[in-house]
């Protein structure tokens, strides 16, 4: 029987028994992006609050699929009981996870999902998935763009690195979300760089003088695009919406230079990832699929969002809270 009520000190003493305090290893995406830093903050703060140990490793860059796999392999050889993973692509961590599943370790999948087909064939069984739907976030931005440009018009899309999965999902979602009277005239790749986005946006406004808005695949680039709009004297005429909800972007929304950001809450994702490990350690059955909160931040609610950041400002559903109480 599981000793959820037992004191932590004695829990791990019988070999094979589940321990009440899990030893957690987390592998997340690129470290040069504030989004994943906030995710790490969520993981760290929840760990600290509940007194569990956690080691967090990140890939060198958002494209470093094999490097991330190497890091997971490095951690897999060590004595952790629960692994929180945010894979860069659907399959790049499958090999390492297969090894972990074979050893009976708990795998908690956050943010980007592990490819279901590949997971099944390799025998990987994530205990739970916690994440946001990037396509849905893009669609929210698309709907918001529709509200801002009631009369319709031309918009352009600034994506991350060409071929990047996250960028692709957000952009596709946006295209599905915008009403029919808004036309996406061009999509460019700005490599997740603010400077590159600024240059691209300047060029795009020149190529399409009628341009009414930009959808930008993340906030950092979004701030660059907003700057390009301001530089060319079109502030207010050309709308800019981006995704992520980092602090600088919330402030820009408040100041009106950015017309909206779809805030995803990596903090909450990271936090719930640790909670999931705790719940699993306590022997509780985990819900297979947990939706992390997503909010559309506009000038109206920017103050609220800023006050709460990096936590979500609205209510959201956290099924793990109850399990580890």
């Amino acid at each position, binding site marked *: 029987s599981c000793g959820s009520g037992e004191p932590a000190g004695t829990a791990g003493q019988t070999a094979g028994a589940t321990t009440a305090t899990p030893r957690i290893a987390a592998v997340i995406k690129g470290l040069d992006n*504030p989004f994943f830093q906030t995710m790490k903050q969520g993981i760290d703060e929840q760990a600290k609050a509940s007194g569990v140990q956690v080691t967090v490793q990140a890939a060198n860059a958002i494209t470093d699929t094999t490097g991330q796999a190497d890091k997971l392999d490095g951690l897999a050889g060590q004595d952790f009981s629960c692994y929180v993973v945010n894979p860069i692509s659907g399959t790049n961590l499958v090999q390492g996870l297969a090894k972990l599943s074979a050893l009976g370790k708990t795998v908690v999948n956050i943010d980007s999902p592990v490819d279901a087909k590949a997971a099944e064939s390799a025998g990987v069984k994530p205990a739970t998935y916690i994440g946001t739907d990037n396509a849905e976030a893009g669609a929210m931005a698309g709907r918001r763009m529709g509200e801002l440009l009631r009369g319709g018009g031309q918009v352009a899309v600034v994506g991350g690195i*060409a071929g990047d999965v996250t960028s692709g999902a957000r952009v596709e979602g946006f295209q599905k979300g915008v009403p029919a009277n808004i036309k996406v005239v061009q999509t460019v*790749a700005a490599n997740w760089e603010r400077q590159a986005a600024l240059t691209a946006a300047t060029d795009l406004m020149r190529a399409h003088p009628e341009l009414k808005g930009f959808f930008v695949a993340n906030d950092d680039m979004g*701030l660059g695009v907003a700057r390009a709009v301001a530089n060319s004297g079109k502030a207010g005429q050309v709308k800019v919406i981006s995704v992520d909800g980092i602090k*600088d972007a919330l402030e820009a929304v408040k100041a009106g230079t950015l017309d909206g950001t779809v805030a995803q809450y990596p903090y909450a994702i990271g936090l719930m990832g640790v909670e999931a490990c705790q719940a699993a350690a306590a022997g509780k059955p985990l819900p297979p699929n947990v939706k992390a909160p997503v909010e559309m931040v506009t000038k109206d609610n920017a103050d609220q969002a800023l006050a709460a950041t990096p936590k979500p400002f609205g209510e959201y559903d956290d099924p793990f809270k109850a399990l580890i109480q």
Partner: protein
Amino acid sequence: MSIAARLKDPALWAEWAALVGLIALVIVFQALNPTFLSPGNIASMLVAAAILIILAIGQTFVIATAGIDLSIASVMTMGAVAFGLSYTAGWGLGTACLLAVAAAGVAGAVNGVIIAWGKIADFIVTLGMLSAASGLALILADGKPVTIVDPVLLRLSTGGLGIFGWTFLIALAVAVIAHVVLFHTRFGTHLLATGGAPESAAAMGISTRRIKIAVYSISGALAGLGAILLVARVGAAEPASNTSFLLNSVAAVVLGGVSLFGGRGTIVGPVLGALLLTALVNGLTLLGVAQFYQPLAVGIVVVLAALMTRFQK
């Protein structure tokens, strides 16, 4: 040599690859889209090219000594973070600028000292610095961008004289000074000698070590200047890696006709190379080339620009 004879000299054409390529590119783009040569677009291209021009000049000094500075982009990132920290600490714009250049210059000097005294390949040392500088930038900035709102910086990045933005004019001034240093000072001659035949240069009493340290310091300091322009341009100091600047800076130099084996060089060439690369991306965007086709087009045009000069003969 007579002018006719000079025109037959393939070395001349190699040096002017970038100019020939640039002119051809301008003609094609202008034919396809007349906005290309509108004053507004020229102005924004020149401003967009400014940082790359400055980095390419720093890279030219290093490459002329048969070295390569792989750390140039991440040293710029580090310089930007140094700027951001001192600015937000309230030390004023001037101090922040000085600190950015100083921090980047020191990183360059460290490259130079290790290469000259440790006798390790330039590639390895600057690769190490590429990693170390971006690590330092992340640590110092705690991984977060710092928004910087400063009226002077804003004017710097948006104002100018006619179609020439201030940042482009700064880059131009750097180019002129660099040209004088390379071709009209003893240092410049010694630099080319060090690159072309280090043993002969040493036999003539030139301290090749001092030259190496100097060029890497120059490259670092110019990366610092680039950092200031970058912060002015995007309005924030970010620890993000600017990897595209690295390859582009070397590409501009090589397109500009400077051999990676050192000993020869121009400043005009790399400047034109930087303009070529900037115009290329601008033109492709203006023409509405689909995003997946852009890298393909860039690749083909870069090779064609270099190839073109071969058929001139």
